[in-house]
């Protein structure tokens, strides 16, 4: 596993935790424990994103930092094996 895959895997892990907690909170909106975990993973995810996009480019278009080239369109795209 290369560094890009490692960082992407971290993001996938944290974002999955966020998503599953999100659905739980939709039906348990007052649950303090779930909210606490949500905030914990939100912070971890934001840090992992910052690292990733600095080295490997944007995950959403407005994260493009280059003033030279529109890096959003660069390979790989998620359905390609090399992106996983």
């Amino acid at each position, binding site marked *: 596993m290369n560094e890009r895959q490692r960082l992407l895997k971290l993001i*996938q*892990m*944290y974002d*999955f*935790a966020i998503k*599953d*907690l999100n659905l*739980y909170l939709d*039906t*348990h*909106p*007052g*649950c303090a*424990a*779930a909210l606490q*975990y949500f905030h914990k*993973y939100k912070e*971890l995810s934001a840090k992992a994103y910052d690292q990733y996009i600095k080295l490997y480019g944007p995950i959403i278009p407005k994260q493009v930092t280059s003033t030279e080239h529109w890096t959003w369109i660069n390979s790989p795209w998620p359905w390609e094996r090399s992106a996983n």
Partner: protein
Amino acid sequence: MLNSKNPNYNPDFRFPEQTPIGMAYIPFQPWEEPYDAQQGLERGTMFPSLDLPFKRGAV
């Protein structure tokens, strides 16, 4: 109206007080200690109680 702003709202009741026939009732999931993020992603759920895998070849 019993919603999340009502002080009596308690979504941790597994079943409601009244369960008349002619309706379906799913128990509310009570909070439990979740998997860590890595295990959660691998299992497809953060909650051990919802980790119900398929056993291929089971008779």
